[in-house]
């Protein structure tokens, strides 16, 4: 293996570097290019496509390209948000991998000047009957919890799904949301020749060596040897760093700031210099180190956690030192901003590397072929006549409620402190979490969503559905969707079939964003999510934030009072393809995914939001995995009251009860308001169906006048609540 191959570069890329420099790079320079031009840092396979996303809007204060995106929420306030993956580290060292994923995303948020106010996560694992999967699941949840709990940021929501395709390559995506005054936004820019460049926070050690490159190849049998590429987290250090940075931002000492994540110092220096159209000259001898004898290569690519690079106004170094000293943290001048646009690295004064900063930060784009995967043709075919309709729908309902993808995730979120900061109005387990914004009457709603199976069967529609569902979840709480941060998890992009999935997903997300009017303001792409046996399902996770103007509008999924009328907004269609029902009951993961008419989706959501704002709605719940019957059961469980419903339509009973048609919301209203709602729906030309009433202590569903489901609330609750705990043995 050649030297450049060892750092993950291709021969073409190596030649380009030689051409750029007009000479052969030395070992340090080669290593710097290796990490910076890795897929993880450079987005070289995805950059050109990501331009398709709509990213603007009157409320967007910061779109993609910075550490996080920012949207205005009025009252002089804004929220910063970003999602990031930590999949490969979590596959081989689940506790630290997940913990440092949380640490990294928190730093992305406070780097912008925002105080982190909420964490979410989106997790994917193999099936829980596998022992190693249970180990990964248990440790990932613990790692996420221990880190966020210690830093004191509530983990308020997210999702966990299980499918065999994630068995060897679990997905761990963490999202953080912060609150900031609109005038206080900080950026990762190095400007002002002669301004000192300071490294603050933790010391630099040999952990996380080349993590970025490790994340840019598939997992294999040799991956376990790469454990040293996994960083070790110290949430206590992060908490101190967070408080010190926020205190520092109150002064006017900061020119620019950037956290040290993937590719460590190399990335932070070259990116800030590149954004500022300047250079940085630093000496590794000044870097506070954890171990003796660290080489310049090790210092420059170490991914030791809880560190920040701060570009300080010349003369204000003492102010920075005073604040970091108070919090017991290092703050050392390691270099200064230059005008030569070079990243110059010295060791005790001697230059050991000197390359154009921009050439590191802006890797050449790689063009990849795409090809429709051969698996699709067979998979989308579904002979529905060959699928028997079950006799006992009660049993089907209970099985679905106990399916790991639908069951209560209490086992998970009880391990997260979701209440700290005392603003969590709607706690985990709802359609979306709701956090109140103190000092205003507003609140924000947050969710993450993605149905990987849909995306596997049809990446374009599946991805659009992820956007639609996330928005629907927010709307059900009474929030107007504001912005998206996307975590795009795919297999090896060098495979034309995987790249086709990626292309399609980007198209689907873009189209949904356009029509629903929601911009993408930040995100992360994670490729190479595959092991020797298989690639994961395409999993574009949509993290979304919405705004509730008036906290009295906050709506939850649980039914409220006896006698309330239950109305379905939207339409039931005979769609079984890709459903949880097909998988759990018939063992099939195939068929056409549900149709999605984005224009209808937009109108359903607008209608629901309007009814909530008019104070007409007592409960609202999105109808998704498990279909109508599961959604109704969830509203009963959450409200601790039963319901009696009559659904009439000529189609397969199983499709009617458990099919996953899109653009459906179940609301309950005061019986007196029914005419108002019906009139409104007529004016908007929207399909609706009056389903029944809230009553009793059982869920009863008549389909075409035949009682198909009649189960006591207690049994429903038990099936839904206990499954995950049982699977995890507690």
């Amino acid at each position, binding site marked *: 293996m050649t030297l450049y191959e060892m750092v993950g570069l291709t021969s073409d890329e190596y030649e380009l570097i030689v051409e750029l420099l007009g000479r052969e790079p030395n070992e340090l320079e080669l290593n710097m290019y290796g990490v910076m031009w890795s897929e993880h840092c450079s987005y070289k396979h995805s950059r050109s496509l990501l331009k398709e996303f709509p990213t603007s809007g009157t409320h967007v204060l910061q779109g993609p390209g910075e550490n996080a995106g920012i949207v205005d929420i009025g009252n002089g306030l804004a929220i910063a948000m970003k999602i990031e993956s930590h999949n490969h580290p979590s596959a081989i060292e689940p506790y630290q991998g997940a913990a440092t994923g949380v640490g990294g995303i928190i730093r992305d948020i406070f780097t912008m000047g925002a105080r982190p106010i909420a964490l979410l996560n989106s997790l994917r694992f193999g099936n829980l009957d596998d022992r190693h999967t249970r180990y990964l699941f248990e440790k990932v949840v*613990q790692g996420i*919890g*221990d880190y966020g*709990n*210690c*830093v*004191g940021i509530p983990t308020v929501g997210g999702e966990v799904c299980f499918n065999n395709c994630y068995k060897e390559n679990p997905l761990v995506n963490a999202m953080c949301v912060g609150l900031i005054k609109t005038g206080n936004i900080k950026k990762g820019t190095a400007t002002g020749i002669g301004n000192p460049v300071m490294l603050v926070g933790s010391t630099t050690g040999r952990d996380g060596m080349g993590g970025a490159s490790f994340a840019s190849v598939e997992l294999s049998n040799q991956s376990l040897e790469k454990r040293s590429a996994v960083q070790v987290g*110290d*949430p*206590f*250090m992060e*908490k*101190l760093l967070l408080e010190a940075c926020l205190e520092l931002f109150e002064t006017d000492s900061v020119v620019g700031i950037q956290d040290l994540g993937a590719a460590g110092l190399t990335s932070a220096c070259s990116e800030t210099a590149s954004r500022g159209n300047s250079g940085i000259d630093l000496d590794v001898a000044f870097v506070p180190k954890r171990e003796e004898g660290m080489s310049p290569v090790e210092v420059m690519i170490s991914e030791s956690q809880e560190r920040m690079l701060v570009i300080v106004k010349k003369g204000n170094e003492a102010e920075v030192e005073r604040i970091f000293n108070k*919090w*017991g943290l290092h703050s050392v001048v390691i270099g200064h901003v230059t005008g030569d646009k070079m990243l110059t690295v010295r060791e005790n004064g001697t230059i050991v590397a000197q390359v154009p900063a921009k050439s590191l930060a802006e890797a050449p784009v790689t063009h990849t072929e795409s090809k429709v995967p051969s698996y699709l043709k067979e998979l989308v075919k579904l002979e529905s006549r060959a699928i028997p309709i079950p006799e006992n729908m009660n049993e089907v309902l209970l099985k679905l409620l106990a399916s790991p993808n639908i069951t209560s995730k209490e086992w998970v*979120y*009880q*391990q*997260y*402190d*979701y*209440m*700290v*900061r*005392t*603003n*969590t*109005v709607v*706690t985990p387990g709802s359609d979306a979490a709701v956090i*109140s914004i*103190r000092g205003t009457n507003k609140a924000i709603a947050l969710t993450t969503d993605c149905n990987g199976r849909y995306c596997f069967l049809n990446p374009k529609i599946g991805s659009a559905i992820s956007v639609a569902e996330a928005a629907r979840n927010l709307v059900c709480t009474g929030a107007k969707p504001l912005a998206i941060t996307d975590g795009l998890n795919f297999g090896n992009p060098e495979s034309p079939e995987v790249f086709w999935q990626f292309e399609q997903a980007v198209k689907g997300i873009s189209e949904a964003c356009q029509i629903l009017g929601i911009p993408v303001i930040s995100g992360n792409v994670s490729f190479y999510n595959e092991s020797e046996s298989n690639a994961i399902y395409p999993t574009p996770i949509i993290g979304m934030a919405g705004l509730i103007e008036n*906290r009295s509008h906050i709506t939850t999924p649980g039914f409220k009072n006896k006698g309330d009328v239950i109305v379905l907004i939207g339409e039931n269609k005979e769609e079984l393809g890709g459903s949880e029902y097909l998988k759990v009951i018939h063992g099939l993961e195939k068929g056409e995914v549900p149709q999605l008419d984005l224009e209808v989706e937009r109108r359903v959501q607008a209608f629901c939001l309007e009814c909530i704002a008019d104070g007409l709605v007592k409960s609202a719940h999105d109808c998704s995995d498990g279909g109508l019957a599961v959604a109704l059961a969830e509203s009963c469980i959450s409200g601790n009251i039963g319901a009696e419903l009559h659904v009439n339509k000529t189609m397969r009973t199983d499709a009617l009860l458990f099919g996953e048609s899109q653009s459906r919301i179940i609301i309950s209203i005061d019986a007196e308001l029914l005419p108002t709602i019906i009139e409104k729906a007529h004016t908007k030309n929207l399909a609706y169906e009056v389903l029944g009433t809230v009553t009793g202590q059982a869920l009863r569903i008549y389909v075409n006048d035949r009682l198909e489901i009649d189960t006591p609330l207690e049994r429903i609750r038990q099936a839904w609540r206990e499954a995950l705990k049982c699977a995890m043995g*507690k």
Partner: protein
Amino acid sequence: MKFGVVVFPGSNCDADSYHALKDVMGQEVEYIWHKEQNVDRFDCIILPGGFSYGDYLRCGAIARFSPVMDKVVKFADSGKPVIGICNGFQILTEAGLLPGVLTQNQSLKFICKMVSIRIENTNTPFTELCSKKQVLKIPIAHGDGNYYVDKDTLKEMEKNGQILFRYCDNDGETSEKANPNGSIENIAGICNQQGNVIGMMPHPERAVDRALGSEDGKTLFASVIHYLERSSVYDSL
């Protein structure tokens, strides 16, 4: 009346306690940095929850050596009320101001949820407005809340009325099922022999707003405010 909320490196419920006292209870309140040497201006001190010093070594074991802790001990010795919540409770036991220890939850997992606790003694500054056997809904969020104390001390504590709160079900029954973390005798909170130093694992500062699920924590804060007002009336006599 002035409340002080100690800020250790790693405290993370300091702002919540501050908010509960200032904005909800309308009291004067100030943060006390852990290096501060003078706490004479306060009438009541709160050691808030969090992960002081990362809870490295053992929960609360390092925080007890913080410079301010000497002053807190003297403050407590003078009879003024001190309450440790969650990590604050752990620090108080480490500092020897309260008996017993808090070990890892029986499930070995962090637990965050709303629980019910029963008032066992109404004759202390933080419970004097409660009624005996009253059930309060207050959340817990901890990994190490499993209270343990040896049998003899426990007996002594029972006799002195040092058991303040027990985990219970909604009807006030202290069943095993209602015990979230394995604490001995369902103990959720205790006080010292004099009754002025209180430690509890549940977070009353998180239960001061109906929109967040409970405002039962207000009763405890209202009690200590009532107590302090009462004592200052005596002082002025």
